[in-house]
């Protein structure tokens, strides 16, 4: 098949939170330039998986393996994972009062590029470009991170951050939720700008709508902590039409047989 390199992969990942196993052995392999989507009912473990992969201390990975560009992800803490090229766009981005968006991002870019003077020198220009790309008013540069932002503004800023940091793998947890129709287009444009060439994307979503703008290579259905079905973009359409019950039913049968 394809001789593309794997950017990001995990296998048989188990996650525990608050003493419960909420992710029960899931596997995935994302190659360069690929976009994968995860869909699934509320509470099925999508955010838990995303948080655990990003290194959130409350989400313990109790089994499995995960690799980013051939490096063992699970050996790293959240900082190291970010520096290795993993980016999580949060379902509920947090406010950091007193820290301006510009300063916040400058430090993040500095952390990524270390002593690379050039990256810091072009920071302003780059930031300006990204503000334009995501159609965010430049006044946001001096506002405190997510402090008093509307739901949609927060999501936009998550993607702006991603565009600034240009990660190898972006995990987007319901970035499309809470966006109006125009915003969805703009944000999709931002996402697509990152999903070029060597990068991979993992999109968690409830709606096939965003997939009109961002073409997934694969769609995974997550239920009760497991991936229960895999398909192409047409699977998203089918889910939109029929909901999850039919998969649930099929799965039930499979278990009973």
């Amino acid at each position: 098949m394809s001789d593309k390199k794997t950017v990001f992969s995990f296998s048989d990942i188990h996650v525990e939170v608050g003493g419960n196993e909420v992710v029960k052995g899931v596997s995935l392999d994302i190659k360069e330039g690929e976009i994968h989507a995860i869909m699934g009912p509320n509470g099925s473990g999508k955010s838990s998986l995303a948080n655990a992969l990003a290194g959130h201390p409350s989400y313990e990975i109790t089994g499995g393996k995960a690799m980013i560009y051939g490096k063992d992800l699970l050996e790293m803490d959240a900082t190291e994972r970010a520096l290795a090229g993993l980016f999580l766009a949060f379902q509920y981005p947090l406010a950091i009062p007193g820290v301006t968006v510009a300063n916040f991002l400058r430090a993040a870019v500095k952390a990524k590029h270390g002593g690379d003077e050039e990256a810091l020198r072009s920071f302003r220009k780059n930031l300006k470009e990204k503000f334009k790309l995501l159609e965010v008013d430049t006044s946001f540069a001096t506002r405190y991170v997510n402090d008093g932002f509307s739901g949609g503004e927060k999501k936009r800023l998550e993607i702006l951050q991603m565009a600034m940091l240009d990660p190898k793998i972006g995990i987007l947890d319901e970035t499309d939720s809470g966006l109006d129709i125009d915003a969805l287009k703009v944000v999709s444009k931002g996402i697509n700008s990152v999903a070029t060439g060597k990068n991979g994307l993992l999109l968690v979503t409830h709606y096939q709508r965003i997939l009109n703008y961002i073409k997934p290579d694969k769609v995974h259905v997550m239920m009760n902590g497991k991936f229960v079905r895999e398909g192409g973009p047409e699977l998203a359409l089918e889910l939109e039409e029929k909901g999850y019950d039919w998969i649930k039913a099929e799965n039930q049968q499979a278990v009973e047989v």
Partner: protein
Amino acid sequence: MITETLTEQKVAFRPIAENEPDWLYDLRSRAWDYFQEAEMPSQVEHLWKYTKPKWFMPKEIEKKMSVLPVASEIKDEEIAPLKPEFAAFGCNHGDRITYTQLSEELKSSGIVFEDIQKAITNHPDLVQKYLGRLIGYDFGKFEALNMALFNSGMFLYLPPNIELEKPIYMHRHPDDKYNIPRLLVVVGDNSKATIIDDYAGKANDRPYNANCAVEIFGGQNSQIRFVSPQNLYKESRSYVTQRAQIDQHGRMFSIFVSLGSDVSKFNLGTILNGQGAYSQMLGILFGDEKQHFDHHTMHHHKAGESFSNIDFKVVLKDKALSAYTGLIKIDEKTLNCEAFQENRNLLLNKGARAESIPELEILNDQVRCSHGATVGPIDPEMVFYLKSRGYSTDEAVRTIVAGFIEPLLTAVPEDLRQMMQNMVQFKLNNGTGE
């Protein structure tokens, strides 16, 4: 214990100088009697709930009884010229005589800026008019001790109608003895001054104990900016009582930054003494290791249409402790006052502890008043958010702390902000060993 037998037996009281005026000798001997007779503050009292009074008791106090101020160890010719960014400069080490410098323009303005003992000799009437009027001999046991035995300090008198653009910089260093400094500041009607009272103790690295009193008078329409960074040596103990009194339409803006000392107890108060007087206090406290801070602030509205605001932010790590009590007092007949008070505490780890106790004594209902206090740990979700963007844990914590303090820094006038930022940054970086 020496200190205990001393408080029982009476020691003959001696003058601090051969030509000491009678009024001062009387005042000081009354203070001495008061100190001898006053009980140690009871720890049941709210203001002493967290801090042991005996920590501030001097040893071998009889040695202080007749101490005359010692000449400065710095010879006149060794004193560097006044830096162009300051209007005046004063330097005081331990119980040595303060040396002061004035800019050329100020020399003929009628300003007095001298060692406090010298001022008693040179300007006895002026000193008599103000000394002890806000912190009297019977203010409290430790204040009485200060009044009885103060033997170093500065006197600043700014006549009416003088506006200083540049700050007056006071460099005050306790040394390895029991220090009893006193600072007296008078700013005349319509005058304007910025005073930086740098209370720091890097002179030598030996433990010391200091009992300090600060009295500040702001005349009608005066504007005082009083910046008070406390960066005392980590092994030291420090007891400070500060009172400011602001007359009609006068404005007092005070900033205190508490970073140093092992144990420090600060009682900081501003009295709004005239119609329309204004006071804003900003406080930043950053403690680590086993530092113990006990701060009390007070805004006393004695006149109508006066305004006060305090914003006091505390950051603690390791096993540091901060106890804060903030009093707003509005008298019965003083109507239409506004008073605000906020104290936020950020704890960086489990061992750190903060107490916050607002106190309101508001005796009429024609006021606008609000107060708030919060104590909380650093939010681990915030730390994760920053780490997920490539911040190290240390950087994440530092960023959150800087953000916590940021709204306060923006309230600091622009020309003083950089200085504040540097001080906080220094402690922040030090705190993480970088």
